[in-house]
Structures are given as C-alpha cells and as structure tokens.
C-alpha cells in the first residue's frame, strides 16, 4: 500500500455530510425517540435503581456518575454503529459511494464526510443524554455544555476505527465481532460504571490505552462540574488515536472502493 496523505476537509465532504443529515432529518421522529428514550430508561433503571444501593461513587451520587459515563459511552456507541452498519449500507447494497465517485468527489471526501456525520450523530445522542441528565438533576450547572465538543471528538475517534472494520466487512454479521471483542470490553472497563481506580493496578495501566477511558476522563468532570485532571494527556491521546485511525481508514476504504 502506498503511503497516502491524510485526508483534508473539502466542500465535497460537507456535501456527503449534508446528504446523511437530510436522510436523518426525514427519520428524525423515530431517531429522537430512540436517543431520548433509551438513555432515560437506562438512567432511571440503573441510576436510580442501583444508585439506591451504591449511594455515592467518586464523591458524587451514583446517578450523576453513571449519567456522565453514559454520555461518553453513547458517543462511542453511536459513532461506531453509524460507521459500520450505515456506512456499509451506503457502500455495498445502495452503491451510494459508487455514484458519488462519478462526481468530482474522491474517496477521501467520502471518508471525511462520513466521519463528520458519525460524530454529529454522537453529538445528537450525547446531547440528548446530557439534556435528560440535566432534567433529572444530574448536571452541575450550564458549563456542562462544554462537554459537547468533547462528545464530538469522541465520536470522530470511534468513527474512524468503525470505518476500518467496514473496509474489511463482507457482511453485517462481521460487525458483531468488533462489537463483542472491542466495544463491549471498553463499555465495561473504561470507567463508565465505576472509577478505573478500583481496577487492579496492571489493568489500570492497560485501560489507559483504550480511547474510551480518555473520553470518560474528559467528559465526566465537565458534566459534573469538577476540574479535569490531566486534560492534555487525555486530549492528545484521543487526537493521536483519531488521526491515526482516520489515516488508516482512508487508505483501507480507498483500497476497497478503487480497483
């Protein structure tokens, strides 16, 4: 494989983003219900239900702890789903990319447009949970909205590896491996349900290599109104991971689409 340059943002990428946004707008009703309904159910069930037994965690009510973790998890989850199932649908059965590649747009424009769209969906979903959490009193004050750019960044970071998986996928069932082997362990291990400081020491170092850990470490303090420790470490970790994955994704999607 030739070393490809890192894809850049162009007008054509925005056209790809806009295409997806317009399709989403049409199905918004069902989508919004899902984005608000699901976290509401989880937060009420787990947060209140479990919270009654747990009481406080890391110096805050368990409900608050869980809500802030869920925001980061949802950013990861939504971007991953979109970059796998939806991108695959556009790439293979619908041949949408084949049509787009007959215009001045190139593979990199599709990659960047899709990454931005996946991150936008993370923003919508994470924002919805943030709103639900705020209504239920889990948010400290208005500064919680600064979590939104972090949610977007988290979305970008997870959309790129999703595209990498899609570039190899021969069918939808392929994605279950990634879900089970990569996303679910992060969901369990990266500090969504409990602070990573409760993990055994070697595990604590290991989870530092997982991007969700860093997303949680940035998003939770913003939501609950605490100072962020090691902001730059987390930010740079996410950025390096995201840029590298984007670069690899663009090369692999190109290999898949251009024969």
């Amino acid at each position, binding site marked *: 494989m030739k070393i490809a340059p890192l894809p850049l943002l162009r*007008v*054509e990428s925005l*056209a*790809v983003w*806009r*295409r997806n946004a*317009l*399709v989403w707008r*049409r199905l918004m009703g069902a989508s919004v219900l899902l984005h608000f309904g699901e976290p509401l159910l989880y937060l009420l069930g787990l947060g209140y239900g479990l919270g009654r037994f747990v009481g406080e965690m890391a110096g805050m009510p368990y409900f608050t702890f869980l809500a802030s973790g869920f925001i980061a998890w949802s950013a990861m989850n939504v971007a991953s789903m979109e970059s796998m199932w939806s991108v695959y649908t556009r790439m293979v059965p*619908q*041949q*949408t990319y*084949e*049509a*787009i*590649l*007959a*215009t*001045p*747009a*190139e593979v990199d424009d599709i990659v960047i447009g899709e990454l931005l769209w996946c991150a936008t969906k993370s923003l919508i979903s994470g924002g919805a949970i943030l709103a639900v959490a705020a209504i239920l009193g889990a948010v400290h004050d208005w500064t919680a909205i600064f979590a939104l750019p972090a949610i977007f960044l988290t979305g970008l970071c997870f959309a790129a590896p999703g595209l990498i998986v899609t570039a190899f996928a021969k069918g939808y069932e392929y994605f279950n491996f990634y879900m089970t082997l990569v996303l679910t362990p992060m969901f369990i291990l990266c500090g969504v349900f409990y602070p990573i400081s409760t993990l055994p020491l070697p595990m604590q170092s290991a989870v530092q290599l997982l991007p969700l850990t860093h997303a949680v470490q940035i998003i939770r303090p913003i939501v609950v109104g605490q100072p962020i420790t090691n902001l730059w470490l987390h930010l740079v970790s996410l950025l390096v991971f995201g840029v590298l994955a984007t670069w690899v994704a663009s090369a692999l999607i190109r290999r898949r689409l*251009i*024969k």
Partner: protein
Amino acid sequence: MQAPSDHALVHCRNLSKFFDGAAAVSGLDFDIPSGSCFGLLGPNGAGKTTTLRMLLGQSPRSGGTLEVFGKDIDLNRRQIRQCTGIVPQADNLDPDFTVAENLHMYGSYFRIDKTQLEQRVPSLLELVELASRADDRIDTLSGGMKRRLTLARSLVNDPKLLVLDEPTTGLDPQARHMIWSLIHQMKRNGKTILLTTHYMEEAERLCDELMIIDNGSLLAQGSPAELIRRHCESDVLEIRGKAPRSAVESLPSSCRTERAGDSLYIYSDDAKPLLELGQSHPDVACLHRHSGLEDVFLRLTGRELRG
C-alpha cells in the same frame, strides 16, 4: 497507430490495466473527436467498463498515456469529472431521496449552487419526461424511468463528455427508443458521447465510430459502415433448421458458410447465388438480408457463449 487529432476530447495510447497480473485491458489506442459519438463494443468481460473507469479516473491504469480534455487524468481527476456525465451500468440512484432530490443531491457534489439547481432540475425532469414524478420515491419507478432519471442525473453538471455504460440493457423497446432519442438530442446539443453496448442496432444507430474489443484488446475500429465493408460480405442468407446438403454444396466457392446453433449463415458479396438457393428451395425457412454489424461482431468475437 493514428495521429492524435487536435480536437480529440479523449486521447489514449497503449492504455492497459492488469488485475493481479491478468490483463483486463491491453494496449488500447483511440481518440474521441469532440462532438462525436464513439462506441465501445465487446462481449461481456471484454474490458469495456474497466476502460471507462480508467477514463474517469475511477480506476488507476497500469500503463499507457491517457488524456481527457487535453489534461492528464492522474493529475486532474476532479476537474475532468467536473465536466463529465456518467450513466453507470447498474442503477445507483439514491433510494433515500425522491426523484427531484436525487438531482439536487447529485448537483451538490459538483458544487452547483442551489438557485442554479432550482432552475436546472425541473427542465432536466421535463427532458426525460419525469416531471410528474418529481416527488416520488425511487423504488416506485420502473426500470425505464430509473434509466431516464440516471441520464438526467448525468446531465446535472451540463457535461461536455457523456459516458454511457450500457444505457439500454434490460429495457423494453419503448424505453430503449426514448433513450436513443435522448442520446441523439445530446449529440445535437454538441455533447461528445462515449457509449458501451452489446446491442448492435444501438451502435449502428448512434455511433459515428466504433471500436470492437475482446479480452481487453482491439479487434477492429471504424465507422459502422466501414466495419461491415471491411469485415463482412455484403449479403447473407440465414437458413433455419436443416439446410439441404446438395444446395449448399452447389454454392460457388466465393460463398462463406458459418454454423451457429441450428442456423446456417451463408455470406457472399454477390446476392445472386443466395437468392437462387432461396427460390429453388421454397420448403426451407430462410432469410436473405444485407450484412449488419452483428455479423461483423460475431465474426470477430466468435459465436461461443461468454460467461
């Protein structure tokens, strides 16, 4: 090798493409003059679509030089596609949008602004007689309508070059004639057209110049009339079913016979022996006609079935 013409919109020499070492296209030379309709003919798998994809910068070539609009394709992919309209072999309209939205969306990939599209889209739908279906979803359209919409979509950027990959495959005669008349209209409007097909009637009607390829290599090139003159006798007698042996044996040696399926084809530059054979055997089902492009095509590419 022909001399490159100054006003050639597409100019390629020794164009080649290998997939894992196997040649899909090897050493094609051709020029497409501005304003002409150029046909690329060949059996399935001959390398037609691969050639088109290289021309559009959608597939990197393995060798040769290739210029479109006088520009090297490698360095100017975006600019070249900006001025090119494409009707792909398989429909890939966007099922998430309506008929009109498909054109708007496609226009946005060319950076055409909204006000311009608002003028252009209704007139394009008018052109392909889909104005009444503007707000319908793609899955409600018939195959012919989808093809027409795909043709309208290929015109959204007012292209100089129109690339049509088997534009009428799978269509009924009415839909096919409508596409043909649209292609004629495009030609009158000064567009240069590159067409692939395996309908010889289509090639004869539409193309000024043809290239017949097989296994990625050139077999013959010229105008439809030239190709027929050069590669085939002028007349043919087609005998269905069992041909009387005595009659065939009595044919002059200038006649060439060919068997395909349960038919016998007798080719000759002189119609007389063919007509005599037909008249002397009124019980035999036979048809006398002038040779056509199909005879040339089958002669050059062989009669055996392709995968």
